């Protein structure tokens, strides 16, 4: 197509326009301003051109046209009385039973199900030292992965901190290996300053535990309790419609959990008392007679 070049007398930029086209300059407040063709003519866009090409090829494009013309896309996809639209307008969350840390919720509910047995006794009954080691190591792997991705503000980092993990592995080492090996392992762990260093130190030797060894470090019980209580509260408030007895709705109960979390985190890792969060969960569940829906 033949094109001519036009230069704006005001700012000096050059534009290419087709020969047969309408004049592109318009007068506003005494200055000539160049207006590109695509801005003036709204109907000629890439999507429209493609749609016309589809139409000429014999494809039915009625639905696509209605989707593109409407501003609120959600309302054209769903019906007016769809429960999902209601959920979004009410709380901002879509309830999905397969979202947000289902496994830890189920684990915690299995542990607090029996009111006569305490949480700690139930943990001792169900798990052993092998599980403690495996769980802490998996947590370590995951945090290394998160850091590699560039995530820094995840809540996960607050439950099992580097200091906590070092303390846990130092307590576990004498149970897993010969005394002299354990000593060297402990001195190696104490020198670590990053997650990947700790990982390298641990994989230096193989860790064997006896079959029915039920030794549980106090530090691990505390961290495990915190993670379980926090994520369970988040899950049941968001997906199961659970509301704390002192609160009115979803947002306020989420806020109280967040407030409590921040208060506990303000202390150093060795002084954090996660049992406060767990007691909040257990008392509120027993007061409201809450049961999992799905």
């Amino acid at each position, binding site marked *: 197509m033949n094109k001519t070049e036009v230069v704006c007398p005001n700012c000096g930029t050059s534009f290419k326009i087709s020969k047969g086209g309408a004049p592109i300059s318009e007068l506003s407040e005494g200055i000539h301003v160049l207006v590109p063709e695509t801005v003036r003519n709204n109907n000629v866009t890439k999507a429209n051109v493609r749609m016309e090409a589809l139409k000429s090829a014999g494809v039915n494009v009625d639905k696509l046209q209605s989707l593109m013309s409407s501003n609120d896309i959600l309302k054209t996809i769903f019906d007016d009385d769809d429960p999902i639209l209601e959920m979004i307008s009410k709380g901002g969350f879509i309830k999905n039973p397969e979202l947000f840390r289902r496994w830890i*919720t189920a684990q915690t509910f*299995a542990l607090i199900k029996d009111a006569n047995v305490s949480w700690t006794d139930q943990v001792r009954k169900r798990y052993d030292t092998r599980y403690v080691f495996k769980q802490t190591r998996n947590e370590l792997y995951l945090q290394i992965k998160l850091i590699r991705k560039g995530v820094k503000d995840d809540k996960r980092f607050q439950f099992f901190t580097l200091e906590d993990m070092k303390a846990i592995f130092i307590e576990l080492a004498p149970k897993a290996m010969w005394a002299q090996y354990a000593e060297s392992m402990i001195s190696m762990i104490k020198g670590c300053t990053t997650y990947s260093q700790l990982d390298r130190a641990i994989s230096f030797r193989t860790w064997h535990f006896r079959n029915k060894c039920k030794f549980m470090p106090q530090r691990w019980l505390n961290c495990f309790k915190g993670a379980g209580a926090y994520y369970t509260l988040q899950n049941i408030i968001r997906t*199961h419609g659970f509301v704390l007895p002192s609160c009115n709705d979803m947002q306020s109960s989420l806020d109280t959990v967040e407030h409590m979390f921040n208060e506990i985190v303000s202390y150093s890792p060795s002084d954090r008392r996660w049992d406060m969060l767990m007691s909040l969960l257990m008392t509120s569940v027993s007061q409201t007679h809450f049961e999992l829906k799905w």
Partner: protein
Amino acid sequence: MTTDEFIKKVEDGEPYRINFEKKEVRLNGFLVDIDFETTNNAEEKLLELFENYKYSVPSAKADSKYFFGFDESKLSTKQLAENESRYIARAKLELFVLGLIINQLWDFGNEWYWQSKAEPKLVLFKKWF
């Protein structure tokens, strides 16, 4: 040892292994003799145990090599919280089937396998018997 005693030991956390081809049971690595009970409606109890196994809570290395169980993603949160551990559910199911195998309590007819109509994934093979 009766079946109830065996399952109580499994619940305490002792490792076990049940083999249909060799027709043997091992607890802590040692062979164990078990007195199997005979039941009248074996098919009903088999289906009951299979359903218990299918919806049990999965964990690493707990799945049976003979029977199919659901993955974690197909179970709801409630089922994950309340159901039995797969390690124990598998012991119950496999022990019952081994009792059928040793007492030869199944009619295959002319077929080389038996498939349940209610649960198509539940299959017993004639070569085990």
